[in-house]
């Protein structure tokens, strides 16, 4: 479990092209599109499933940041 807490959801905005795939397939409604870029609106709800990272075509969102 300790490993899990290290896997914080992170965003690299300069890589995001705003396609919205991560927002659509996030099971916990953690993400939103703001000014054509992804933004984290509710980090507490994140269950670190990695569905966003798996389908992000631009490598802009991932687990494992600090």
């Amino acid at each position: 479990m300790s490993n899990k807490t290290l896997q914080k959801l992170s965003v690299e905005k300069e890589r995001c092209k705003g396609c919205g795939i991560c927002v659509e397939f996030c099971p916990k409604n953690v993400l939103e599109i703001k000014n054509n870029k992804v933004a984290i609106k509710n980090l507490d709800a994140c269950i670190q499933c990695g569905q966003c990272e798996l389908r992000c075509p631009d490598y802009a969102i991932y687990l494992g940041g600090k």
Partner: protein
Amino acid sequence: MPSQLVDKYFRTESLPHIWCPGCGNGIVTRSIVKAIDNLGLSQDEVCIVSGIGCSSRASGYLDFNTIHTTHGRALAFATGIKFANPDLHVIVITGDGDCAAIGGNHLIHAARRNIDITAVVFNNNIYGMTGGQYSPTTPTGDKGTTAPYGNIDANFDLCELAKAAGATYVSRATVYGANMIIKQVEDGIKNKGFSFVETISICPTYYGRKNKKGDAVDMMNYLKENAVNKVAYDKLPEEKRKNKIVVGELFKGQKPEYVEQYNKIIESF
């Protein structure tokens, strides 16, 4: 701290990549890298070969031994590389136009020889880079810039083609089910022989717009709803099979591998 996977295996100075917003190619590229990472292969043990097209840009973003070759000829170059250095894991990244049209002959002969190469086809049903011309995998009736009234050609089933030509591992996955791509590329690399992984990608810019399929999210949802595993598909009644995308491992066979056979002859002297 940036993504470890991307940091380790990508040429990050060339990111963000050139692909359009919502293009599925980035998802497949990451899946291939993840598969290599899962297998624990070092970057020097892997050679990525690509042809020409949107998909084939991938080799430029990846930090392995990479070669960006001519249109349709990725498999021909890869055959040479595998011969010269049989210890390399050679992975070919190619598009539907690249591998099924201009490179069609290279595909069938690489499969016939059963050379130990893993070919990953990014099938987005259209020629994206050159402006949306219809490709051999554009479904009959769908539109492209060169088929404004609908394509009258029958579309290729690439997996059937590879299987019939002699590939020993054939599978298909969609970019929605990216975990499946990771698993299949792993299995493809492990298979000693020609492995063919068809990935159903999305092109919202050309294929999606020309055929009113909506944006990237709509196209992903379409894949989610219409992809059916082979086991489930075989049980479906005929009337429910229409327009379904059959995914999963479609064929696994056993045949002598080409480079091994060649080396046997050399050793016999």
